[in-house]
């Protein structure tokens, strides 16, 4: 297992947002986490990436190492990259600078250069506009830039929060294809989505989060067939 979350509890002050979360992401998998607004999806990702601290007794294990008490920057070094909800690019910096920021923890100049070229091959539009300020990009391009920034840390696990947020379906489809390519190149992907259909089509396994509890888990295809999920999320 690449990532194991065990008994994770988290509260914003007195308001508990996550209850006894147990989930696993295996090496080379694409795993989806779906849930409606306010279910706690982003909160869970922030816990995994170290931006928020879970309650005592929670455990996060990455690549065989307990990282529960480490800070966010240490987790980036260990290979966890987060593409945050709403992109959170450095709007006042150029695209190139944004990407270099993604490589902040690295010092292997040659490998950074190679990764940059590989990423530009993946997103040619970013190479074209590398000197442009990130804030001037369209929504889809910003999402590309955010994914590319995540990849620049050379992660083992890429976590993507709400890829589809505010994007046209055709753009989402194209981005999903790119993520498939990234996955084919050996990066494990943890996808957090409100767009249940897109998420389950893309992934092998899935989890369903509801008001802070994991209520379903299993094979993505089975989950899509599940009557309760169909009713709640797909409107069928």
């Amino acid at each position, binding site marked *: 297992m690449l990532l194991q979350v065990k008994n994770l509890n988290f509260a914003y002050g007195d308001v508990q947002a996550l209850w006894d979360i147990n989930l696993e992401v295996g090496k080379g998998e694409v795993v989806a986490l779906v849930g409606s607004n306010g279910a706690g999806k982003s909160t869970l990702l922030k816990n995994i*990436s*170290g*931006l928020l601290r879970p309650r005592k007794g929670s455990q996060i294990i990455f690549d065989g190492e307990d990282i529960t008490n480490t*800070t*966010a*920057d240490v987790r*980036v*070094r260990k290979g966890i*990259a*987060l593409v*945050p909800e709403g992109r*959170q*690019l*450095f*709007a*006042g*910096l150029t695209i*190139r*600078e944004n990407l*270099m*920021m*993604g490589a*902040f*923890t690295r*010092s292997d*100049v040659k490998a*950074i*250069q190679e990764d*940059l070229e590989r990423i530009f091959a993946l997103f040619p539009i970013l190479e074209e506009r590398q*000197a442009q300020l990130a804030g001037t990009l369209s929504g889809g391009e910003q999402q590309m830039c955010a994914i590319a*920034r995540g990849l620049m*840390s050379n992660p083992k696990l890429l976590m993507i929060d709400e890829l589809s947020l505010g994007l046209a379906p055709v753009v989402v489809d194209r981005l999903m294809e790119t993520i498939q390519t990234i996955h084919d190149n050996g990066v494990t992907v943890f996808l957090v989505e409100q767009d249940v259909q897109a998420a389950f089509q893309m992934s092998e396994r899935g989890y369903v989060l509801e008001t802070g509890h994991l209520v379903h888990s299993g094979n993505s295809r089975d989950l899509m067939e599940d009557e309760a999920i169909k009713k709640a999320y797909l409107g069928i």
Partner: protein
Amino acid sequence: MASRLLKQWNQSKETLFSQSAQRRIWLPVGIVFLLGAIAFPFIGTGYWIRVLTSAFMYVGLASSLNIIMGYTGYTDFGNVVFFGVGAYTTGVLVGQFNFPLPLAVLCGALLCSLYAALLGLPLLRLRGHYFSIATIGVMDATREIVTNMKITGGGMGMSFPIFDISPQMFNMLAYYIMLGLAALYVLASFLIRRSRFGFGLRAIRADEQAAGISGIPTTRFKVTAWMISAFMTGTLGGVFGLWFSFVEPSDVFDIMISLKFMIMVLIGGAGTVFGPVIGAFFMEIVSELVWGRFLELHMGILAIIVILTVIFVPKGILHYVQNRIGLKGILAEMRQNKI
């Protein structure tokens, strides 16, 4: 090892980032200016030597505030607290423990750094206005403590030892020390901005959460930035005390001084290396030419300058000079900002 990595990083940055050529003009301009400043005491009058000494002090103070406020994006209304702590520590060490002067100033600055570290760990978790308000609180609290301590002379203030040299020599010495410190701190500011550390600070200013997930140890960087800022401000406080030879709590823990170097940073251009320098000189020259004539109104004039800055040149003078933005551009920008 670490320095080698940093070097590699800088090299990679030079190939990976396009460096604008117009930055290069600063080097010759700076050297000419520095040579002029070194020669000035031989031709200038005593009055203007004192004015410039104080201008250099403000260049140093604005540059050090710029590190936490401009680069890191944490608006610190109370940075003057380090000025006061530096001055008082130097005074106590020199006056009562007979420390050699440079050592006393250094100890004062180190104490400031320590103070910033202790305060920074809780305070730098606050963001935006909350941090700014907290810094005002720290300044007020520190002033009260100093006012009520015996060793500092309390509310009566503290006199520094008088040196056995002629006033002319003394003023020259103060002038060159302030000039040296100002030059050193502008250089430090330049180096920090270019470094990997400075790159991280800029990221924190742009978006702290995004900086965190990019692997920047945000808390450590912020606290370090504040410690550097405190150290620089502290040395200037110590030298100021020796130069003025008297300090009292309401003088050195005064929010107006803090505001003054904040306004300098804003007018010149926060987050740039030379913006605070320009701002400091602009303000000091304006104050020399204007204040004396409008003693009653000078606070009002200061406020008008702040308002005009925010409306017309919100990014600081330097931005408009560097990018050759004229009146037309300024008006266009104002329309864009819906003023």
